[in-house]
């Protein structure tokens, strides 16, 4: 018998016990409307995003949130480029979320639909948060179900011919604990287990294998992935209020999955307000992972093992982000229906480095050539620049 139902019944029992400690009432956040613009440039890709979000309380216990997001992609990452495909695509995402509060319990139900011409995803999420122990502790339990339809564009960017390849289903179980430790310090821990099954690979990426019969010395072939994947991630974080009205936070996340990947993420943030008008923030984030057990940059021959991948996301890699953000608050006295407004600009620079993913586009697969023997090309790496600018109105 699977241990999953047993674990779930333990979680349910824990939730029941925790709900016994109910007293007082929680509140919903302020009504707001946001208009958002973002840009990502790096690794051969240029992505712009536009989004609108509206959140409105209808009673003190009930709120609705709607979000529409569209991003436009041009270019393609290096492993897709090396397979001579160019992407120009658009993703439209709609989501609706309902929050309901009863006493100290907050319920959230949301539905998200995301559509690209070769990928359709439908996600449903439910979570329950409980304040307890004099409101010093919040426990959250959540569940997410996602059904995806995966396709491939066999035509061109302007005249697509979509072949549907299969479905992927994902289920996620989340648990979290947030704890006030002192009047200046708050900490939280969260756990998320995600299981996927179905068509899990990126159809635009290929393996490469040694092939002495061609001038380059290698050929490209089809990836083969397992059709199941389970991951576990644990994160701990703490935020401290400094004596001169500023905040510093630190977080660490450990990740492991059944494909043999282990990941570590560390982030440090600092927030400094200037009077009541400006908020300045800085952050540094570092991430590292090892490669999946079935990943290789260069296989000895096609079909040399059961599962074969050369997706750069599954390679050994590190990345480091340095970011800065500034928020300007206006209309402190309010205007018409609005209580206040803010404008925020955020700029990040990310350096990606790969430990066993080689740059075959730049050095070997171009007419200029690089005269590198297969497997000796320089390792791939790139910089990305990300900026966001958004207007938030609170009412």
């Amino acid at each position: 018998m699977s241990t999953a139902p047993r674990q779930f019944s333990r979680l349910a029992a824990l939730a029941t016990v925790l709900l016994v400690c109910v007293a007082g009432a929680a509140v919903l956040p302020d009504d707001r409307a946001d208009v958002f613009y973002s840009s990502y440039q790096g690794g051969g890709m240029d992505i712009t995003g536009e989004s609108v979000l509206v959140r409105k309380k209808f009673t003190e216990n009930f709120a609705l949130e709607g979000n529409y997001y569209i991003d436009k992609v041009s270019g393609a990452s290096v492993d897709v480029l090396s397979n001579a495909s160019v992407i120009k695509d658009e993703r439209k995402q709609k989501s609706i979320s309902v929050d309901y509060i009863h006493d100290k319990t907050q319920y959230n139900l949301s539905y998200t639909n995301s559509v690209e011409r070769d990928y359709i995803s439908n996600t449903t999420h439910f979570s329950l948060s409980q304040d307890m122990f004099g409101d010093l502790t919040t426990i959250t339990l959540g569940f997410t179900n996602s059904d995806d339809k995966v396709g491939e564009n066999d035509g061109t960017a302007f005249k697509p011919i979509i072949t549907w390849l299969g479905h992927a289903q994902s289920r996620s179980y989340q648990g979290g604990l947030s704890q006030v430790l002192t009047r200046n310090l708050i900490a939280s821990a969260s756990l998320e287990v995600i299981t996927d099954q179905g068509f899990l690979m990126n159809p635009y990426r290929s393996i490469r294998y040694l092939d002495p019969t061609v001038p380059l010395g290698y050929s490209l072939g089809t990836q083969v992935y397992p059709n199941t994947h389970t991951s576990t991630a644990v994160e701990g974080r703490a935020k401290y209020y400094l004596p001169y009205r500023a905040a510093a936070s630190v977080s660490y996340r450990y990740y492991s999955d059944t494909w043999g990947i282990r990941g570590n993420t560390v982030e440090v943030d600092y927030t400094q307000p200037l009077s009541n008008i400006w908020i300045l923030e800085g952050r540094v984030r570092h991430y590292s992972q090892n490669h999946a057990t079935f990943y290789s940059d260069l296989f000895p021959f096609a079909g040399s093992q059961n599962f074969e991948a050369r997706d750069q996301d599954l390679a050994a890699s590190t990345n480091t982000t340095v970011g800065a953000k500034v928020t300007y608050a206006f209309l402190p006295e309010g205007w018409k229906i609005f209580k206040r407004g803010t404008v925020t600009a955020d700029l990040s620079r990310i350096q990606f480095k790969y430990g066993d993913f080689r740059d075959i586009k730049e050095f070997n697969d171009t007419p200029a050539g690089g005269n590198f023997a297969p497997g000796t090309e320089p390792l791939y790496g790139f910089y990305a620049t990300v900026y966001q600018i958004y207007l938030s109105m609170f009412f």
Partner: protein
Amino acid sequence: MTLGAIGSAVLLGACSIQPWVKPYERDRLADPIMSWDRDAISGAYVDHIYESREASRGATGTAGGGCGCN
């Protein structure tokens, strides 16, 4: 089973714990600069950037906040 019973007893016992940070001492925690994620739209976007380029996923924060300011 025994462990479960002990765990339940401990948790129920904790119901009587008095808050060591009183409601009137939570002004700093209620300051917007102490929020984990002031702007959901930006937080979701940043998560999406990393999830698209890293194998790691999940556990990027506890939903529902919990500054204990209510």
